[in-house]
């Protein structure tokens, strides 16, 4: 078969000889008719027609033509691109930016939202929570309820839930080595690991009898900790380590991929006493049976609400508002990031569109410049599809080079992102560029190449060879179709840019609004750090109190320290939230009583933070353990519960503590929970008068210094180590740093969309510049005539600017419309700014319009400098 094909093949040289013979025979005939030699040959050639076309068609019939064509197209494309290095660089860079941004964002979305959780059958995993605590997205539940639920599920074979586990995370002091270290510990039930079906790398996980008080002196290490502190030595399994001053036997090591709850260095059993079960809040994870549907799981968990409430029959107060629900675990873990990621995906999509338009525009400009070349090729008999495939090859080549560069950019971007993920996108797992990202990038790249190759191809098909060749001499009217297409592309670019600009503007405005918001305290020159009092030595209130007093005393005497206090470090609230009663007022209906935060602080807490006293007094030494209970409230508290009267002198009580406390002072409102949280009513108690022992005693230090708070960190660590070398100071940061970090994700959102918007605007400006320059070139002769007839330079410039202004106005109108439609998706990311903020819309429009005018400047000046004499000569 192959042999036969080869036999049939004729060389193209043979074919050429045949055609030569044809022409010579024909010429002989003409000569016989009396023509001269030259005339005869010329006539014979003309009569034959297009030799090359015949040859090509001959060629067509015997080869894998597409392969030849592809090679030919590629060679030509490379040569043409190399001939215009400037154009090529701009096009490749544009594509690289677009693809890079797209790939980087995709890799985040892929990591967070698309890639399944690393556990077996991840779709069967659900987060279970009580809407009463923490709301409908990232809820938690009471530990006691977890036990009720688990018992119910396990006692009922019809339940769609196979297993359920509870977990929480907290810090522990690891005191094994020369220097104590603070570690993140997952506190989990034995069923936690079996629910996730996570097998240890070495050893085992917890046994059912180990998550009970007394049996809990065991620990499972994370891969990272095992590598970092034990050099990956598996013989550590079975040995004891010291945690929180107690001994714990290492029973297992988890594999590297197991990172749940996020950031855990080790896992300890969640062993709770009956009393603790009523106070601890835990997260719950459940595994559904393989056969169970999503609806069945949801329904079963919701039904359990009644079971739990029945358990509370003698404690009606706790049963208020209980409602259990189940959500797919992945959704719950990524709940907070979802809105931001969707916004970024949208923004990057818009930017990619702009990139496509930009390159399409560049290709069109190129096609316009090459109209003559293309027309000549058509005239010489090149089939249309060959020209289209040539243009497509060129655009695909540009996009593939750009895509490769873009992937490189994405790798850099992801590295930078991973370095800042602690603050930028809190809760974000380590992002990596994997096969799916690469595949996605390739697909986007090819689609982009085809998309921006099609416009010029259509353009080149839109005119015949004759018109194009004729047009060459009368430039003014030529290429109206191409010009129209370029205008449309530019308007689309402008519109999309404005949409992005407005989005970025809204995010930036809400970020700067928060950044410049007065927190209500003086963040400058305050150092903060935490010390956790763990172990048997600090189980009594007295011991905890003594430690705090000594620490404060020693720190206060350090040089440069003005005041030191202990209490919740803003932004962030750590304390209790609950209902209370005001003396002399009737009991409100159940569940509708006044509520407030109840925070414990030391004497100088307000002084360190610089929070002003509005009324009465703050705590004094005389407010000792034996003195009458006093509280200080914030203005929000006073305003909400003592409208129109002074709060001073009133007595309040919380239900869990039956003693009445007198309000002795009102301090100014400050954003305790965070700059983006409204100020809630807070009642402050003095440490001195707090009678109950904290289960998780943690001292949050706040130190006001004269200057350079960060310089104090080392000294502080030394002071703490001098008191008890097993109590590490950790998380030392200046208050300003904390404020800054708390806005990290907002800054990131604003900066990212801002960068997209700027790139988009820049690309759109280049588009405007290109279209306007071309317009000036086209109209040079017309301008010459106008000038010759007495038009003023200003009028000429106006003529050109008019078109730019028209493009700009249409673009702005479209963009504003797009922003109106899309900005509601930003709601979750905005604070203190409406999605239709007129100021932002106006400012963005002005900025974009300015960019349009700037892009018109150079072409406009060229139009103004047209020399009538020269222009007229070229008509």
């Amino acid at each position: 078969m192959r042999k036969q094909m080869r036999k049939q093949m004729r060389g193209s040289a043979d074919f050429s000889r045949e055609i030569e013979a044809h022409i010579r025979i024909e010429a002989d005939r003409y000569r016989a008719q009396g023509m001269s030699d030259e005339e005869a040959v010329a006539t014979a050639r003309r009569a034959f027609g297009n030799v090359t076309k015949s040859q090509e068609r001959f060629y067509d019939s015997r080869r894998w033509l597409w392969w030849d064509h592809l090679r030919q197209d590629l060679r030509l494309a490379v040569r043409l691109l190399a001939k215009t290095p400037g154009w090529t660089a701009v096009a490749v860079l544009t594509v690289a930016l677009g693809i890079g941004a797209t790939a980087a964002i995709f890799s985040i979305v892929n990591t967070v939202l698309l890639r399944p959780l690393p556990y077996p059958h991840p779709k069967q995993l659900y987060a279970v929570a009580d809407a009463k605590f923490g709301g409908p997205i990232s809820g938690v539940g009471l530990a006691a309820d977890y036990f009720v639920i688990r018992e119910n599920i396990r006692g009922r074979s019809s339940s769609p839930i196979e297993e359920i586990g509870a977990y929480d995370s907290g810090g522990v002091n690891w005191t094994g080595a020369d220097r104590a270290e603070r570690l993140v510990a997952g506190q989990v039930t034995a069923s936690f690991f079996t629910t996730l079906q996570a097998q240890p790398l070495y050893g085992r996980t917890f046994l059912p009898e180990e998550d009970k008080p007394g049996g809990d002196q065991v620990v499972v290490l994370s891969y990272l900790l095992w590598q970092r502190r034990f050099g990956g030595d598996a013989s550590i399994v079975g040995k004891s380590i010291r945690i929180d001053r107690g001994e714990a036997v290492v029973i297992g090591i988890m594999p590297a991929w197991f990172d749940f709850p996020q950031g855990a260095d080790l896992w300890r059993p969640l062993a709770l006493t009956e009393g603790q079960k009523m106070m601890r809040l835990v997260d719950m994870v459940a595994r559904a049976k393989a056969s169970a549907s999503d609806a069945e799981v949801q329904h079963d968990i919701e039904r359990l609400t009644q079971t739990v409430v029945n358990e509370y029959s003698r404690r009606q107060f706790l049963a208020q508002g209980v409602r259990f629900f189940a959500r797919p675990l992945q959704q719950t873990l990524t709940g907070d990031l979802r809105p931001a990621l969707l916004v970024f995906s949208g923004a990057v999509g818009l930017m990619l569109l702009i990139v496509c338009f930009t390159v399409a525009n560049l290709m069109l400009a190129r096609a316009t410049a090459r109209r003559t070349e293309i027309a000549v090729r058509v005239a010489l008999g090149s089939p249309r599809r060959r020209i289209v495939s040539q243009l497509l090859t060129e655009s695909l080549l540009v996009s593939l080079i750009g895509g490769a560069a873009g992937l490189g950019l994405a790798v850099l971007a992801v590295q930078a992102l991973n370095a800042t993920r602690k603050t930028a996108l809190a809760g974000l797992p380590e992002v990596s560029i994997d096969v799916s990202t690469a595949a996605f990038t390739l697909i986007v790249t090819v689609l982009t190449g085809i998309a921006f190759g099609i416009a010029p191809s259509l353009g080149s098909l839109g005119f015949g060879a004759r018109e194009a060749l004729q047009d060459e001499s009368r430039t003014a009217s030529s290429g109206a179709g191409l010009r129209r297409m370029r205008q449309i592309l530019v308007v689309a670019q402008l519109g999309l840019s404005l949409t992005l600009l407005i989005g970025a503007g809204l995010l930036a405005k809400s970020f700067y609004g928060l950044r410049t918001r007065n927190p209500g305290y003086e963040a400058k020159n305050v150092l903060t750090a935490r010390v956790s009092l763990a172990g048997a030595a600090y189980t009594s209130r007295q011991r905890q109190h003594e430690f705090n007093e000594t620490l404060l005393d020693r720190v206060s005497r350090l040089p440069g320290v003005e005041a030191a206090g202990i209490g919740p470090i803003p932004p962030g609230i750590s304390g209790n939230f609950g209902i209370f009663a005001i003396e002399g007022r009737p009991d409100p209906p159940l569940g509708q009583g006044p509520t407030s935060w109840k925070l414990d602080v030391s004497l100088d807490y307000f002084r360190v933070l610089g929070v002003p006293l509005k009324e009465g007094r703050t705590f004094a030494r005389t407010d000792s353990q034996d003195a009458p209970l006093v509280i200080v409230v914030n203005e929000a508290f006073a305003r909400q519960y003592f409208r129109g009267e002074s709060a001073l002198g009133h007595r309040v009580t919380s239900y869990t503590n039956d003693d009445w406390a007198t309000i002795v002072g009102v301090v100014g409102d400050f954003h305790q929970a965070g700059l983006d949280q409204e100020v809630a009513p807070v009642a402050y108690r003095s440490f001195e008068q707090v009678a109950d022992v904290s289960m998780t005693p943690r001292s949050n230090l706040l130190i006001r210094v004269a200057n350079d708070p960060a310089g104090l960190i080392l000294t502080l660590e030394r002071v703490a180590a001098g008191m008890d070398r097993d109590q590490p100071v950790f998380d030392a940061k200046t208050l300003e740093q904390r404020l800054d970090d708390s806005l990290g994700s907002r800054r990131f959102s604003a900066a990212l969309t801002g960068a997209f918007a700027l790139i988009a605007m820049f690309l759109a400006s280049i588009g405007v510049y290109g279209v306007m320059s071309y317009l000036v070139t086209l109209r040079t002769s017309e301008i010459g005539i106008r000038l010759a007839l007495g038009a003023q330079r200003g009028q000429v410039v106006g003529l050109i600017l008019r078109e730019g202004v028209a493009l700009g106005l249409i673009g702005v109108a479209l963009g504003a419309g797009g922003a109106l439609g899309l900005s509601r998706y930003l709601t979750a990311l905005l604070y203190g700014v409406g999605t239709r903020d007129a100021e932002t819309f106006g400012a963005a429009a002005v900025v974009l319009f300015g960019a349009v005018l700037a892009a018109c400047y150079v072409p406009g000046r060229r139009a103004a400098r047209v020399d009538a004499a020269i222009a007229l000569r070229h008509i």
Partner: protein
Amino acid sequence: MSTREPDRLALLQGTLDLLILRTLALGPQHGQGIARAIQESSDDELLVEHGALYPALQRLEAQEWIAAEWGVSDNNRKARFYKLTKTGRKRLLVETSRWRRLAGAIGRVLGPETA
């Protein structure tokens, strides 16, 4: 332009193959000769476009209806001569009768020349 092309009939798709086979039935001929023969025997009504002629020859050769070899023309030019093969001759008969039927049928539809 001083010399306008005479108004010639364009060849119907597929008819060129038939005309080539018919021409070669008279004896071996080279490409230029085939083109000229068709033109002359149609009283200059049919003009063979050379861009189509050689691909057609190529096609017929591939189907083994014609065979080719280099030879010397009347006026001592080297040329590639084509001749009809046995299968080509059969093909010519089939194609000719099919063409006559088609032409007759179209003629009947169009009716006598009136207008």
